[in-house]
């Protein structure tokens, strides 16, 4: 009995076309997964030629430099202001700013909220790892209560440093905001959900509905001082109760 047994190999998981590989992230950092997700979504939507990524300071810039699209760097903080300017001079380009949590919540909070209030037609991607990753894990606006960092050795207290900040919820009530959501990439299922939400956030800009913000929860094994596999548990048990997932605003058409 001789039947045709033509077995072919099909590439399921392709390596993205980045300018420099391997990326300079620490072992177990989720930023690599997030940048891969961004690259996948941009490629699926067919906007690779138009997209411009605005990086700021901190670890989030490492991946922005590596992506195979046009990138623009700026100082730590006013990424959204640079993105607004770029959108105004080139309205047909697809502009998104990549920011860390400290960049968005502390030094760049003014330009972030102002850009949202103006309703600029850009998308902001936040990567929230609950500390300042590049400088040694100091207290960031999103650090959880009771979390030990080099600047809060006895854990964050509400009396001294206040409550954690929530970027998407903060700007969601503003009229110029078209989309505000939070996702995570700590499990394969959540990664697929985040991909769907990220695609929606990008589509809001293509439909010219207004400002979109999407926040990723991320792990920082080096500064949390736990292993990459324990970070998954930490996100599940500690971060998810503080930072709920899902969409906070999703408008279909402009008022």
């Amino acid at each position, binding site marked *: 009995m001789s*039947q*045709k*047994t*033509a*077995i*072919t*190999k*099909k*590439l*399921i*998981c*392709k*390596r*993205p076309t*980045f300018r420099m*590989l*391997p*990326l300079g*992230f*620490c*072992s*177990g*950092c*989720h*930023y*690599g*997964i997030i940048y*891969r997700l961004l690259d996948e979504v941009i490629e699926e939507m067919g906007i690779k030629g138009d997209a411009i990524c605005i990086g700021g300071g901190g670890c989030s810039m490492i991946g922005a430099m590596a992506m195979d699209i046009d990138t623009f760097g700026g100082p730590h903080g006013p990424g959204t202001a640079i993105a607004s300017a770029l959108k105004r001079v080139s309205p047909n380009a697809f502009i998104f700013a990549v920011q860390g949590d400290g960049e968005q919540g502390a030094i760049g909070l003014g330009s972030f909220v102002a850009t949202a209030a103006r309703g600029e037609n850009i998308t902001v991607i936040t990567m929230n790892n609950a500390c300042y990753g590049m400088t040694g894990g100091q207290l960031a606006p999103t650090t959880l209560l009771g979390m030990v960092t080099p600047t809060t050795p006895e854990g964050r207290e509400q009396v001294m440093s206040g409550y954690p900040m929530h970027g998407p919820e903060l700007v969601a009530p503003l009229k110029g905001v078209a989309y505000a959501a939070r996702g995570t*990439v700590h*499990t*394969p299922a959540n*990664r697929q959900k985040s991909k769907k939400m990220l695609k929606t956030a990008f589509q809001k800009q293509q439909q010219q509905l207004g400002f979109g913000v999407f926040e990723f929860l991320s792990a920082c*094994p080096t500064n949390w001082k736990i*292993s*990459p*596999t324990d970070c*998954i548990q930490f996100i599940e048990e500690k971060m998810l109760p503080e930072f709920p997932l899902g969409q906070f605003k999703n408008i279909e058409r402009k008022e």
Partner: protein
Amino acid sequence: MAKKGEIIIEESFCKGCGLCELFCNKKSISMGKIGPGGFPIAQISDPETCNGCGTCGFMCPDMAIEVYKYVDGRSL
């Protein structure tokens, strides 16, 4: 039982975080082999059980894993 999938690990990219081992449903990957950097990296411990789902590849933060799925000509 024929092989269903195959993964290729680029050893110079792997940083040994162990996320692929954690998320592999079939337990085909294990950490332990000492890589070129001098630390334990991922290796394929049981190539026969891999079904080519691609989870390890998509969850790898360093883009070290490429996943192939075998497609049988008869079943198409």
